[in-house]
């Protein structure tokens, strides 16, 4: 590491010096109930804390020097956010290096540490992978990384173990006589190529579709986009990022003409108000939340606004918590904007100089009085006023947005209103004043940048012919080969075309739609159609792979090299640490192999794509980004090696990267340059180029107003609850990795359902009871957890599918996945499916025998009652922490 672990100014409250004091329990913020805006300085002491002697050789750190800070060992299942390292506004976030090594492995036995970053969430925390005897034996946070300053979350500390699961796919599989049987790569790829060629000859490229991920590397998405859009010429390509970050991209395009997060994680260091909209940061980006907790524990802490129907850890810390009825976010946001405008907490100079559309906003929100909004959203009118006061009074306002908005009815319209608050308040481009329209997945940003979600590569505008021609020149292809006659086909529409039989070839990489898409009965049946040739490229036999005609075994993180970019535009390199198992190959190799076998050629007759490995793919990508907003031209693999991450744009003008966008009130919104002309926020219809030019000739930020529309499915007599789905801290997606990680699996072993005490009483449900939850589309069975969730709302985590379910397969019972119940409907602007707007009913099936629900107690699913055993990890979850280490 080459770092000196001495701490000149150890934090006086650092727990390893005190041994800790009894934990102070947080108080629950009521819905819209005011908590003092000046919150008391509070320090929550750790509970399970063991101090070990120095240099014991048991820790994932090099031997200690004199006078260095000690290493503490913590159960990071029980304490997901670890030790507090308080800091004040404008100060550097202290380092805290977290590490976990396999049982019995000493750090001095590690052969080498290989640079990478975290892959089981979107935060992009720098880490090093420990390798011993050709195997991954642990991870350690990188203290010099700008994102995490050494910290890691529970999924990162333990999740690497899944790489070594005995049930990894190691050989290609093909379906013969209805069964998937092992074969060699030539046989499998020949089948894929033959079917591609047949369909191209018979039907043309519109019979082929690709559905990828938010977890591959940049080089892989870029290659896929080049193959799909360039070589094959199909418009049908999307990522599962459609489910998680499509609205982030859409909201940024609507407001700023282009994707790209304006803010930076470092805005947390400076903000005096942090607003989290539908963003349970404590569970989705644990290290980012650790940063917030450290600000909250330090002097002059920021105040938080939380908009969430669940009693999340964020809600517990919030000065104002609003828990709106699902499906009413636009009304709430319009109410807050109504108050900000009514009280004239508006930066008129900024609005006049840098925006268009303000007058329309004023007109639109005029009717959304707090009382009117209170009626729609079911929040106190005073709560709306307090939220406006908090936001309107902020000097350095930071906002983050995630699935509570993105996966809801009117997703983009609501998220755009968050941007509008920043625009009317002039809160952009300076420390603490930033927007993060967050991502849900580690490499979702790259899916968007590269165009593997259908967007045109490097934020080009598919409805600008010059942009298409420019990309064709970069690729050395005929522009007519790149489809740009219509918006790129989004995931749900790809599935619809597959259902109707007009897509006959679907290649799914690194995602599991048979568990993650809405209305699973439909998805399973359309993927299983005989007329659909289904290729699934994955690392495990997922529920989707089981339906495939060809299964391609892929390498994963740690087994291949590539780059990826997090939600604040930080680019990391992830180097190959070990070989993939068996015959598994990197996704890049598989895509390039396909291209070579298809014999794609560019205009000069040379093989296309023109690159052949990760680094040549990255260099090719850089050429595609020249002059575009996501300009990577100043980044190289060599620069990334050893670095703490670099934020794009990084080019001659910004050689060290760019911390915040739009610092000068200038945007990437000029009509000839912008990525998108925008869409109608109600109908989703794209604006014509002429309309956009008339509206925004100078390329200013666009203030877009939206009316509230009621959700398409509301609770009624038969289905009286609003059903929402979401994540838990301990799992990722469909648990393909986290379910194979002992510590994580034990922390959240089985599906559960959350209901408030009042609704539970009415339904005769007690903690741990077996219940049935049903929507008009499907039914699941789960155990009930009684929490402080908003009355009238049920929550079910979406992680649990069938690969490890104990179900009666003979009876064909599929009653575990939350998506059996969700609705096939999406935001017409971002095309993101709605996972937070279904109606459901609840029925008690049987007693739980006094055994509590298998839901973690550490976060949003914390029980209201007593007697539920706390979630702990035990001895095999002990991880090391080294706090401090001096200035960075």
């Amino acid at each position, binding site marked *: 590491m080459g770092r000196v672990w001495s701490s000149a100014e150890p934090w006086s409250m650092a727990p390893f010096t005190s041994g800790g004091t009894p934990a102070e329990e947080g108080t629950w913020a009521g819905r819209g109930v005011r908590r003092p805006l000046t919150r008391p300085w509070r320090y929550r002491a750790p509970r399970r804390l063991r101090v070990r002697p120095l240099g014991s050789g048991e820790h994932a750190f090099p031997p200690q020097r004199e006078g260095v800070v000690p290493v503490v060992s913590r159960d990071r299942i029980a304490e997901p956010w670890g030790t507090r390292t308080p800091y004040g506004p404008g100060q550097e976030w202290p380092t805290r290096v977290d590490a976990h090594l396999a049982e019995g492995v000493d750090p001095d036995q590690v052969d080498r540490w290989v640079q990478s970053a975290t892959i089981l969430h979107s935060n992009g925390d720098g880490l090093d992978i420990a390798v011993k005897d050709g195997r991954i034996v642990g991870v350690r946070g990188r203290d010099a990384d700008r994102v995490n300053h050494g910290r890691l979350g529970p999924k990162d500390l333990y999740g690497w173990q899944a790489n070594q699961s005995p049930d990894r796919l190691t050989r290609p599989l093909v379906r013969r006589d209805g069964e998937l049987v092992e074969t060699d790569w030539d046989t499998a790829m020949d089948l894929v190529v033959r079917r591609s060629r047949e369909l191209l000859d018979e039907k043309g490229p519109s019979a082929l579709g690709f559905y990828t991920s938010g977890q591959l590397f940049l080089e892989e998405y870029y290659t896929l986009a080049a193959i799909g859009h360039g070589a094959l010429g199909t418009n049908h390509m999307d990522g599962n990022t459609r489910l998680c970050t499509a609205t982030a991209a859409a909201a940024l395009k609507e407001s700023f003409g282009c994707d790209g997060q304006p803010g930076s994680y470092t805005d947390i260091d400076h903000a005096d108000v942090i607003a989290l909209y539908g963003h349970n940061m404590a569970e989705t980006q644990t290290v980012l939340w650790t940063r917030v907790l450290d600000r909250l524990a330090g002097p002059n802490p920021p105040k938080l606004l939380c908009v969430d129907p669940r009693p999340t850890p964020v809600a517990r810390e919030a000065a104002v918590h609003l828990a709106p009825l699902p499906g009413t976010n636009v009304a709430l946001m319009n109410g807050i904007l109504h108050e900000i405008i009514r009280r004239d907490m508006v930066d008129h100079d900024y609005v006049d100089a840098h925006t268009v559309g303000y007058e329309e906003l004023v007109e639109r929100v005029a009717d959304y009085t707090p009382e009117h909004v209170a009626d729609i959203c079911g929040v106190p009118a005073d709560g709306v006023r307090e939220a406006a006061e908090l936001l309107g009074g902020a000097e350095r306002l930071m906002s983050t947005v995630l699935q509570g908005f993105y996966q809801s009815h009117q997703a983009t319209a609501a998220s755009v209103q968050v941007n509008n608050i920043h625009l009317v308040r002039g809160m952009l481009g300076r420390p603490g004043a930033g927007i993060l329209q967050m991502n849900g997945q580690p490499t979702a940003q790259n899916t968007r940048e590269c165009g593997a979600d259908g967007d045109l590569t490097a934020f080009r505008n598919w409805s600008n012919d010059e942009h298409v021609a420019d990309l064709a020149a970069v690729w050395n292809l005929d522009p007519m080969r790149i489809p740009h006659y219509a918006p790129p086909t989004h995931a749900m529409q790809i599935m619809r075309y597959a259902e109707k039989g*007009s897509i006959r070839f679907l290649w799914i990489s690194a995602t599991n739609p048979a568990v993650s898409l809405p209305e699973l009965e439909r998805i399973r049946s359309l993927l299983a159609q005989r007329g659909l040739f289904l290729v699934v490229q994955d690392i495990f036999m997922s529920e989707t792979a089981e339906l495939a005609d060809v299964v391609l075994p892929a390498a994963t993180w740690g087994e291949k090299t590539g780059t990826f970019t997090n939600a604040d535009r930080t680019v990391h390199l992830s180097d190959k640490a070990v070989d993939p198992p068996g015959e598994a190959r990197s996704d890049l190799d598989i895509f390039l192999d396909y291209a070579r076998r298809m014999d794609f050629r560019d205009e000069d007759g040379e093989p296309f794509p023109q690159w052949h490995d990760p680094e040549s793919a990255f260099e090719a990508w850089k050429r595609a980004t020249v002059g575009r907003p996501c300009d990577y031209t100043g980044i190289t693999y060599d620069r990334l090696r050893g670095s703490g991450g670099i934020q794009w744009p990084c080019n001659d003008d910004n050689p060290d990267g760019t911390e915040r966008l739009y610092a000068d009130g200038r945007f990437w919104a000029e009509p000839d340059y912008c990525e998108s002309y925008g869409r109608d926020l109600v109908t989703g219809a794209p604006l014509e180029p002429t309309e956009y030019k008339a509206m925004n000739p100078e390329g200013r930020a666009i203030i877009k107003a939206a009316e509230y529309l009621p959700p398409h499915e509301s609770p009624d007599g038969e289905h009286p609850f609003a059903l929402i789905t979401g994540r838990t801290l301990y799992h990722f997606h469909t648990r393909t990795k986290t379910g194979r990680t002992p510590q994580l699996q034990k922390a959240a072993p089985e599906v559960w359902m959350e209901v408030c005490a009042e609704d539970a009483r009415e339904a005769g449900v007690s903690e741990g009871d077996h219940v049935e939850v049903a929507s008009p589309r499907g039914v699941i069975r789960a155990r009930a957890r009684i929490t402080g969730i908003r009355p009238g709302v049920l929550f079910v985590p979406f992680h649990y599918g069938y690969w490890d379910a104990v179900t009666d397969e003979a009876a064909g019972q599929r009653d575990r996945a939350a998506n059996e119940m969700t609705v096939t409907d*999406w935001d017409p602007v971002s095309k993101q499916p709605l996972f937070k707007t279904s109606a459901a009913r609840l029925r008690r099936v049987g007693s739980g025998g006094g055994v509590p629900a298998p839901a973690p107690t550490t976060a949003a699913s914390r029980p209201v009652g007593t007697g539920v055993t706390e979630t702990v990890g035990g001895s095999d979850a002990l991880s090391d922490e080294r706090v401090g280490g001096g200035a960075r």
Partner: protein
Amino acid sequence: MRIGVALRELHGSETALAGELLRLADRHAKEQEIYHVAQDLVRWSRDHVREIAAVGPRYGLELEEPDLKNPEPPTEEAGELPGDGSDPDLLLLADLRRLYRMAAGVSLDWDLLGQGAQVVADAELLALTKRCHPQSLRQMKWADAMLKTVSPQILAG
């Protein structure tokens, strides 16, 4: 004064448009975006019809509340593209084309009414046209956008 004629015409065309949107949703319920957005857009036409009816008496009109649950069949024939009418994809194209033209007609009617409102100096009526006309245009643009989005796959098939 013939403002009443324009109002009656608009009342009729908005009612027909609302009916057409509902019919579109009903006929293409598995095309989920069309199904949901068409129903969202019915709200605008319903509001417009209500507002036109409210203005009616000032121009000597008693306009009835239309039965939008059971819309009248469209005045134009469905089969406008080659085919025997049983192909749901071609039917979708035909329906979207008709919707576009109906919304364009409504939009034009609002234009006309706006001209009338100005010449008789009816500020309230002018404000109504300014409220409603943009929404008709957005309905029309939606039909156009959906047509552009769904047609390539249908025509290539």
